[in-house]
């Protein structure tokens, strides 16, 4: 399969000019590197392939040196970064594959398809490891819901995520959403998928075995999404609207067939490797598979089934048409593979062979149009360490100190109601009601809890997962903010009784060429690294999304942490809702005076300022161990961590989490702190648990042993009872739980549909 004919331009190819190189997102220096790597000027096809693989999206050119700082190993890690998804061993012969990925730019232009295809892509990343997808989570950011454009984007994204996952039949088990001006022009849409498999079913995306056939499977290749990876690596601008044709269209029905067919192929033993044709399509999937195996490939684009006639090799290689897979079969088993695919009504075509010369060779019919060494194509992308400098205005913001007026609150009950109605805190049911959360009949805790929990059939174990990031904290102090994101994720897992095991991260940032942005990126990665080390949660997969900017500025730096944990006995899971009147409320952790970066400061005083809350990783770890021990012992009736809105919101959420049966609570706090900080400050390292009165000594003793402050602060009240918080100065919050519940559950429906329809029927 070797050739001696030098690649020639394909008829109609434009000449290579500096302008064309720039349009491909490559600098003159990078172009020179390409010429050096292949020993001549590239053809148009070769330029396109290099441009895609050396884009930020595929090549990580600005983030790779930073990502090396992340811990990636642990005895339970079966597959770390660099594959389609990370994989961890959860015991009993089972493994979990998971990854998070962004679809920010497409969703800014076409929210429904942008989000839908984001889900499709991340599902394929998981099932190409041999795992059956069992859950999806979503992490979303939008501008304020007062903007009609934002409501359009939000509604479209939620519907896109829902329609795709619902149709394929994968339950959504959790997520998060924040609304802030910083995301007005740049919504963030990150989707995480989790797959389950037997450990011996793990397969990798490798094109091994020279002579083995390369097979294109699934949808026919069209002209959609060409250069999507390059588009995702630029800032958005006024003419972004014209990028709409670069947004792909999803077909979840074909995805479902691909899923079943892929798993059947993997189990059949007829194939050696499989990979999604995702970003940069056939070009990246074929080169990456060859690079992992140390082989070459020889592909004929004329053999790729296309949607329309006349597609050029350039277009076929770079198309991002969805629901396509690249499969490398064992030679001689082409017909076996075809038979399986035919059963699932999928098209398949042998388009080339694996070679042993390490070359990436593409022909179209008789003509060679691309012949470059695979190594520099996949691994030769230059990486950059950029100038980093913290923005002066952020330094100033951190110096904020609360005024006397900001240290008192004469209407704390009113403030609590406003916080519960804030889109950043209110019930997310408007979102997840549009998702199927219980298909596959394994969802133990669905969206709305601290973390989602799934049972693992055939085992006592459970899997828990969460996605978290408060971008406001990261903006004010990137390293600390990123640590808090990891700590928050870990707290959410222990609250349901799961031991944190590993992380997938989605680094959403602005333009890294700006020193202020690169500073945020660098510091955030260091913060993640520190926290993941402290918690024994290596990063096993991830995604980097840069250039999240528009003319109005960059987004808050938003390193979303997807974390997976394991319950040894899923029957011992813990929920956030208070359970029984008379149960004792215990606060684990200490109340401290923190108001910086809080939702309270933003909502009540219109300020984004201050230091984000202090974080002590060792104390966080001790808190995690305490809650895990108590959960395993079965003494917790409920557990919920303090996050946005602080202790008062935490208590309210536990009181009203079950809309059918909100329970009152009576709490007395003796800390000598200003009321706003005590009730609504976002001090870290706090979890509110409840238990039967007889178990209080166990809780206090366990906490003491781990060095965690613990105090009995109150009692759970009656159904539809009174919500009361007293302090040394008397009762400061007093309301009917039904009123709190009403505010909490109706806020998003009111903002989106102008009514609270459907919320009386829960």
């Amino acid at each position: 399969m070797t050739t001696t004919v030098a690649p020639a331009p394909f008829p109609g190819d434009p000449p290579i000019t500096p302008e064309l190189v720039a349009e491909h997102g490559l600098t003159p220096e990078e172009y020179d590197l390409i010429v050096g790597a292949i020993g001549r000027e590239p053809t148009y096809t070769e330029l396109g392939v290099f441009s895609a693989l050396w884009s930020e999206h595929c090549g990580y050119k600005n983030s790779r040196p930073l990502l090396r700082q992340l811990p990636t190993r642990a005895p339970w890690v079966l597959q770390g970064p660099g594959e389609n998804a990370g994989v961890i061993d959860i015991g009993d012969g089972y493994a979990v594959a998971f990854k998070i990925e962004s679809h920010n730019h497409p969703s800014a232009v076409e929210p429904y398809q942008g989000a839908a295809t984001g889900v499709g892509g991340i599902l394929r990343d998981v099932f190409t490891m041999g795992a059956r997808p069992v859950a999806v989570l979503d992490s979303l950011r939008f501008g304020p819901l007062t903007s009609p454009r934002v409501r359009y984007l939000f509604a479209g994204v939620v519907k896109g995520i829902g329609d795709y996952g619902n149709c394929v039949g994968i339950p959504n088990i959790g997520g998060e959403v924040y609304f802030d001006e910083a995301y007005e022009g740049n919504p963030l849409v990150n989707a995480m998928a989790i797959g389950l498999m037997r450990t011996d079913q793990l397969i990798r995306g490798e094109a091994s075995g020279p002579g083995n056939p390369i097979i294109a499977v699934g949808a026919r290749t069209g002209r959609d999404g060409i250069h999507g990876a390059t588009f995702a690596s630029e800032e958005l601008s006024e003419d972004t609207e014209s990028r709409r044709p670069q947004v792909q269209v999803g077909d979840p029905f074909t995805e479902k067939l691909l899923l079943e067919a892929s798993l059947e192929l993997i189990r059949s033993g007829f194939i050696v490797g499989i990979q999604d044709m995702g970003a940069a399509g056939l070009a990246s999937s074929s080169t990456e598979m060859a690079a992992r195996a140390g082989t070459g490939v020889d592909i004929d684009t004329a053999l790729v089934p296309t949607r329309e006639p006349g597609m050029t090799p350039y277009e076929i290689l770079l198309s991002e048409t969805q629901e396509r897979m690249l499969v490398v079969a064992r030679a001689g088993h082409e017909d076996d593979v075809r038979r399986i695919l035919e059963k699932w009504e999928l098209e398949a075509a042998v388009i080339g062979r694996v070679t042993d010369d390490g070359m990436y060779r593409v022909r179209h019919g008789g003509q060679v149009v691309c012949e470059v060494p695979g190594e520099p194509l996949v691994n030769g992308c230059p990486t950059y360490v950029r100038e980093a400098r913290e923005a002066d205005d952020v330094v100033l913001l951190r110096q904020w100190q609360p005024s006397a007026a900001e240290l008192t609150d004469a209407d704390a009950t009113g403030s609590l109601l406003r916080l519960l109605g804030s889109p950043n805190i209110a019930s997310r049911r408007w979102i997840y009601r549009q998702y199927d959360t219980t298909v596959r009949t394994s969802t133990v805790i669905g969206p709305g809890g601290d973390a989602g929990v799934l049972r693992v059939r055939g085992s006592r174990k459970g899997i828990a997962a969460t996605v978290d990031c408060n971008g406001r904290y990261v903006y004010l102090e990137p390293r600390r903010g990123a640590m808090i994101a990891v700590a928050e994720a870990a707290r959410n897992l222990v609250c349901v009784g799961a031991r944190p095991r590993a992380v997938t991260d989605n680094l959403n940032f602005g333009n890294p060429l700006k020193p202020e942005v690169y500073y945020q990126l660098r510091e955030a990665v260091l913060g993640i690294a520190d926290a993941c080390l402290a918690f024994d949660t290596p990063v096993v997969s991830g995604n980097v999304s840069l250039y999240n900017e528009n003319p109005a500025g960059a987004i808050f730096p938003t390193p979303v942490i997807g974390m997976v944990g394991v319950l040894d006995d899923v029957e011992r899971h813990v929920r956030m809702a208070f359970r029984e009147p008379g149960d004792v409320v215990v606060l684990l952790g200490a109340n401290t005076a923190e108001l910086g970066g809080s939702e309270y400061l933003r909502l009540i005083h219109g300020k984004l300022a201050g230091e984000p809350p202090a974080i002590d990783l060792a104390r966080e770890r001790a808190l995690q161990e305490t809650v895990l021990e108590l959960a395993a012992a079965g003494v917790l009736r409920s557990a919920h961590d303090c996050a946005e809105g602080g202790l008062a919101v935490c208590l309210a959420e536990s009181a009203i989490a079950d809309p059918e049966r909100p329970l009152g609570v009576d709490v007395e706090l003796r800390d000598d702190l200003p009321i706003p900080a005590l009730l609504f400050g976002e001090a870290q390292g706090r979890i509110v648990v409840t238990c039967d009165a007889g178990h209080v000594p166990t809780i206090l003793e366990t906490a003491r042993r781990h060095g965690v402050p613990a105090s009995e602060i109150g009692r759970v009240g009656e159904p539809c009872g009174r919500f009361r918080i007293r302090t040394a100065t008397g009762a400061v919050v007093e309301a009917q739980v039904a009123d709190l519940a009403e505010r909490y559950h109706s806020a998003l429906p009111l903002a989106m549909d102008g009514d609270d329809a459907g919320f009386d029927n829960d």
Partner: protein
Amino acid sequence: MRVAIVTFPGSNCDYDCYKAVTELLGEEAFFVWHRESSLRDADAVILPGGFSYGDYLRGGAIARFSPVMEAVREFAAGGGPVLGICNGFQILCEAGLLPGALVRNRSLKFQGEVVRVRVENTSTPFTTAYEPGQVLRLHIAHGQGNYVADPATLNALEAEGRVVFRYVDADGQPTDAGNPNGSLHNIAGIVNEAGNVVGLMPHPERSVSRLLGSMDGAGVFRSLQATISRSNGALPSSDHMRHVAAGGFGHGGVA
């Protein structure tokens, strides 16, 4: 008892139904791919939920042309118990085995939530284990669950007691507040004239485990088990090709 679970391209609750039969009841279940023309030796048939053919055109509209539907029709004509859940209910309506149709929810959105349904008829093969008027809490997960039929059909359904499940509110009343999707007469499930073909939008197979929060759906499967065991083979099974192996379409949870 042997239960055939029909898998269409896009079915996604087939495995959940399989587990309900095998784990809850300890009975045998097997998948029948939509291109097959025989239900083998099934004692009962379940058309599971999902998005057959992606719900393109309309839920169930394409699936009704699948070869297996002829076998389902014959099985039903012979008196065999047939249950359609969610998309399966849509397919039964599209195939004319049940009257009426399921159109988009009045919210125009997909709705995944827990609703209350009242058991209105306890004499079908799928409801004998319930008390008349018993209120169940079951999951719905659909975008097209809004039951419609012409007035004559509705009158007949009501007069003949063929409304099997009805959406109700917290007080057990079929009010508008208790109606999640706009279904006429709050209809959540119906039975055919002969009394052996039942369709419903809620998912009883999702409420058969205490760990997952509710056992309210178990009665549907236990009713079937009791019915088959009572009939003790008197009901006609589709054929007697007992040599065909069970399962085989790659829906095993992890396997």
